[in-house]
């Protein structure tokens, strides 16, 4: 016993035990003991451990009363987080007691601890069956207890065994039993859907029961079941409708509305009948929860059509009054519903901007964060700046005054802690509303620049590092899409770059900043200072930033060297050295990509500096011609998100087929022998440059090629062809070139087309390449067409400034797609920690439910047929199917693992290719920069 409280009473208790008096006491002792030992956690833990060990002893005692007592105490302790599954067997013993009091304790304990313990559940099954035998009036309660207990510990086998008993109970004369049986059947159906199929009508008949609580239970069960699978219950809808019309009980009405929500999701025919009734209900009811559920039903049950303004307004008006109420719960839920209605059609909520603004300043942060979700529905050109100001204010306030904001509702100030999550959400929302529809709402990009700068400052302290990328992305997008603003934007970018704090806390923003700087380095007059700044800082960024930074530096350097203002050779040398010293440590970077780029860059710059040494006056060709040609071949234009991926997805890299058959190879080799030395040298030269050419993009490659061609008069078409042949031979021997070659084809540049035609080698691989490039071209033109169409649409939508620059190639995702995109992201946030068990648990009924639908159909047919034998056969078949299901599931799993293994092995096989692949990726990546993908 809990001796700490009353140790001296031990003897007395011993004597009293046969009279059952001890029972209450010892639990009370435990509780009192816990309370008495509450001062320090150690003391409490000590006490609890002691109590637990006492329970262990008592549970083993032969005295049933004592055992019961121990189990009860354990149940209590379980709430404190102690595992009691070791006592399951004792619980079972207590359950089997003939005394109701003990049985009750046993079932209580069982429902708390019997989850998924197959051994004990098997034993429990028999006990259950016995307890469910209804023998006399006194047994009502016993059966009731058993039924309640049953629902928590049901298993498929138990369900199969007892479902017949339960169905007989449905006809019991006692409403209490009927009700309990219905609720117990719910769990049975989940485990054993065949039961529902075979006894559907019996079950449905309970909807017409005389007793309201039975009807209520039946409605609830059907409602819950329809969540899993609404299909079989659609036939009940006339009956359910009847109940909805006649019944006055609000609890049941809400259940019914829920049920109809589920049903009308799958059966659109219900809408015309239900909608008027629900609207009527909305007018007549006084209960807010019914009103709320009605609107919920309309919205979630797909009853609100996109153009149904009347109904929408009716709902929204109600919600509007909810939002004005003083009850924060009402405000909150109506906010959520507002959002859902807005999802159906943004136009519905657009007029409620004042309301949303009010909600944004609500006392409750959770209401605010719901209101934030609404913003994108109400934002337009005129109120954008106002809204952003409101949001930014909440930032600044809380940043300055230690996370506090004055509440306003009453005169007194209520300090509000603004959680980081909310701040992150605010940043995301600001970015989203400003950039949506291709900056449709922004009239003043200077203002937006300032906002982005503010956001960059504010986001430093937030833990979500993704924000940096988003802000950087915005800067980049403006850079590309709004040429007239480039100078202003680039000053913002430089401002960001110069800010030490941002550099330290939010390096992710720099990725796109560096890219923009590199790409638009022609705007920068003193590129050398910029390079010196970066190299002097000697600060190294995360790999993904560094990857961008290296080529960007090169771009800046290239532009600066060749800017119209004559640059001093000495200065160039100095900057070159700076660059080299900055890059050197990066050559040993752990990130492959960084390392590679750094090495490429280094090699090229070394070459350049060597050339400078040799040629003191004037700049070497390498710097004046070759380097710019790396970067300036194409003008950048924005393309829509995913276009590139589409391009890439149609590229199939064939690593298996040899480029030349054995015979062809021989032919090439012999031909090669006839080549004169000059050409041989030349091609070697070329290869060398290929290697050193920093960015390895295929475009550059070709460009280098072209340049050299131009420089060297001797090279003519014939040479070219031979060169190509020779190169191919090289590739054959050196698999490293494979990828490059494939990349040529993949990127579908026209040059390449010419090239390969000239080469005229009709090998197999070649053909494929040609095809591919054709495909790519088609893609290209198609894309252009598409984007043209879209951009034409844009002209209508957009304000002047943006139109000018965007009629090039900036397709805008339509309003709706944006709006639907957003919630999915939000969903992700809320699903951050999905509990494993829950998904697991759900899968069971799910997998059984489709089964269920099919089977219920079968059942209907069979009713007309009335052939018992057939029915039995079907059942058998069903069971077989079930089994097959089980096994096939396993099979699938196996297959999956095999597939994975295969993949692995194939990877191993193609070890060589993996290196190439990444190289190719690199190329593609670089190339993408040239095509200028902007993610909208």
């Amino acid at each position, binding site marked *: 016993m809990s001796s700490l409280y009353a140790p001296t009473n031990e003897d007395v208790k011993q004597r009293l035990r046969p009279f*059952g008096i001890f029972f209450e006491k010892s*639990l*009370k002792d435990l*509780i009192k003991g816990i309370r008495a030992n509450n001062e320090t956690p150690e003391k409490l833990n000590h006490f609890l451990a002691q109590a637990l060990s006492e329970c262990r002893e008592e549970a083993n005692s032969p005295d049933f009363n004592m055992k019961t007592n121990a189990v009860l105490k354990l*149940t209590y302790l379980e*709430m404190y*987080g102690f595992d009691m599954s070791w006592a399951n067997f004792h619980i079972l013993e207590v359950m089997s007691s003939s*005394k*109701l*009091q003990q049985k*009750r304790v046993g079932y*209580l304990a069982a429902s708390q601890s019997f989850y*998924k313990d197959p051994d004990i559940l098997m034993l429990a099954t028999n006990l259950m069956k016995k307890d469910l035998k209804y023998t006399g009036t006194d047994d009502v*309660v016993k059966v*009731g*207890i058993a039924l*309640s207990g049953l*629902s*928590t510990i049901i298993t498929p086998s138990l369900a199969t065994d007892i479902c017949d008993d339960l169905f007989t109970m449905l006809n019991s004369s006692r409403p209490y039993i009927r*009700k309990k049986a219905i*609720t*117990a059947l*719910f*769990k049975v159906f989940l485990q054993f859907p065949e039961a529902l199929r075979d006894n559907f009508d019996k079950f449905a008949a309970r909807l017409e029961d005389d007793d309201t*609580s039975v009807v*209520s*239970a039946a409605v*609830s*069960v059907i409602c*819950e079941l329809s*969540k899993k699978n609404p299909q079989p219950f659609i036939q009940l809808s006339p009956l359910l409708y009847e109940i909805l019309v006649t019944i006055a*009980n609000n*609890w049941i009405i*809400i*259940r019914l509305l*829920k049920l109809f929500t589920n049903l009308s999701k799958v059966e659109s025919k219900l809408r015309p009948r239900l909608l008027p009734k629900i609207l009527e209900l909305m007018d007549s009811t006084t209960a807010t*929860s019914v009103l*709320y*559920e009605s609107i*919920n039903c309309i919205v979630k049950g797909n009853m609100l059509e996109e153009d149904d303004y009347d109904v929408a307004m009716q709902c929204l008006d109600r919600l509007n009054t909810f939002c004005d109420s003083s009850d*924060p*719960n009402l*405000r*909150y*839920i109506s906010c959520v519903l507002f959002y859902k209605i807005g999802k159906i059609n943004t136009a519905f909520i657009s007029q409620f901007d004042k309301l949303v603004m009010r909600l944004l300043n609500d*006392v409750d942060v*959770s209401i605010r964060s719901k209101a934030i979700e609404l913003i994108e529905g109400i934002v337009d050109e005129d109120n954008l700046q106002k809204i952003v100001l409101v949001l930014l204010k909440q930032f600044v306030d809380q940043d300055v005054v230690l996370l506090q904001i004055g*509440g306003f*509702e009453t005169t007194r100030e*209520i300090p*509000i802690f603004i959680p980081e999550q909310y701040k992150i959400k605010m940043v995301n929302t600001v970015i989203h509303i400003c950039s949506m529809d291709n900056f449709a709402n922004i009239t003043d990009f200077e203002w937006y620049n300032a906002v982005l700068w503010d956001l960059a400052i504010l986001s430093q302290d937030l833990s979500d590092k993704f924000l940096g990328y988003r802000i950087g992305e915005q800067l980049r997008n403006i850079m590309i899409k709004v040429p007239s603003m480039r100078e202003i934007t680039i000053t913002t970018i430089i401002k960001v770059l110069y800010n030490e704090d941002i550099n330290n806390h939010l390096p992710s923003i720099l990725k796109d900043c560096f890219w923009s700087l590199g790409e638009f380095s022609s705007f920068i007059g003193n590129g050398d200072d910029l390079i010196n700044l970066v190299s002097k800082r000697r600060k190294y960024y995360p790999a993904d930033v560094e990857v961008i930074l290296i080529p960007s530096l090169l771009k800046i350097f290239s532009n600066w060297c060749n800017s119209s203002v004559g640059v001093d050779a000495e200065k160039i040398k100095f900057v070159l050295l700076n660059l080299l010293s900055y890059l050197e440590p990066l050559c040993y970077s752990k990130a492959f990509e960084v390392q590679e780029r750094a090495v490429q860059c280094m090699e090229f710059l070394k070459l350049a500096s060597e050339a400078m040494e040799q040629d003191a006056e004037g700049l070497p060709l390498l710097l004046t011609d070759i380097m710019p040609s790396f970067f300036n071949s194409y003008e950048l234009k924005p393309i829509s998100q995913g276009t590139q991926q589409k391009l890439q997805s149609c590229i199939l890299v064939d690593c298996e087929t040899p480029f030349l058959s054995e015979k062809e190879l021989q032919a090439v080799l012999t031909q090669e022998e006839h080549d004169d030395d000059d050409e041989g040298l030349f091609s070697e030269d070329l290869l060398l440059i290929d290697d050193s050419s920093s960015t390895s993009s295929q475009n550059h490659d070709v460009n280098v090629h072209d340049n050299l061609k131009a420089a060297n008069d001797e090279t003519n078409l014939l040479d070219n062809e031979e060169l190509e042949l020779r190169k191919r031979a090289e590739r054959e021997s050196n698999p490293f070139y494979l990828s490059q070659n494939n990349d040529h084809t993949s990127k579908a540049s026209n040059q390449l087309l010419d090239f390969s035609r000239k080469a005229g080698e009709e090998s197999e691989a070649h053909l494929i390449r040609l095809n591919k490039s054709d495909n790519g071209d088609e893609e290209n033109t198609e894309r252009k067409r598409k984007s043209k169409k879209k951009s034409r649409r844009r002209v209508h939508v957009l304000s002047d400034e943006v139109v000018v620059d965007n009629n090039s190639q900036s397709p805008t995702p339509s309003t709706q797609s944006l709006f639907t995109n957003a919630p999915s992201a939000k969903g992700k946030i*809320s*699903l*951050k*920690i*999905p*509990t494993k*068990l*829950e998904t697991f*648990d759900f899968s069971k009924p799910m997998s059984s439910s489709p089964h269920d639908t099919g089977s219920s159909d079968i059942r209907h047919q069979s009713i007309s047929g009335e052939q018992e034998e057939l029915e039995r056969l079907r059942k058998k078949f069903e069971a077989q199917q079930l089994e097959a299901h089980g096994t096939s599931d396993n099979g699938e799993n196996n297959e999956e693992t095999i597939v994975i293994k295969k993949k692995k092995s194939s990877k191993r096989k193609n070890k060589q290719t993996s290196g190439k692949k990444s190289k190719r990726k690199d190329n593609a990546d670089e190339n993408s920069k040239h095509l200028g993908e902007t993610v909208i």
Partner: protein
Amino acid sequence: MILASRQGKIRLVKWYTPYTPKEKTKISKELPPMILSRKPKMCNIVEYSDHKVVYRRYASLYFVCGITPEADNELLTLEIIHRYVETMDTYFGNVCELDIIFNFGKAYAILDEMLMCDGSITESSKKDILSHVHSMDNLESRDQIERIMS
């Protein structure tokens, strides 16, 4: 669904979906501070991992109830909590925290009578619940008398 009443400390817990002990302790550790930190002016609905949590305060006790966000009605949940408290109030006669602590078995019984296995309400009539609980109590006490007699 979970329903727990607490005041920083847990007084009563009922799990309607199977969770592992680890998850259970995690949830019971995380939830109370979160709810206690909320001000009376704030709304009674909080988002917690993939659930919504609806809570209500009665004197020193918080009644907390986890619901699935898409399917359940928040207002109804508040009503259920209220009904539960009302029922206990009549059963114990002006219920207080101590009543629930010492008669947690009874509190469970009332809850069981009220809520179906997975937490959706079945019995909304206070009278019915009470009569069932009372009849059970009667039988129990009769058991007890019999035992003493024997």
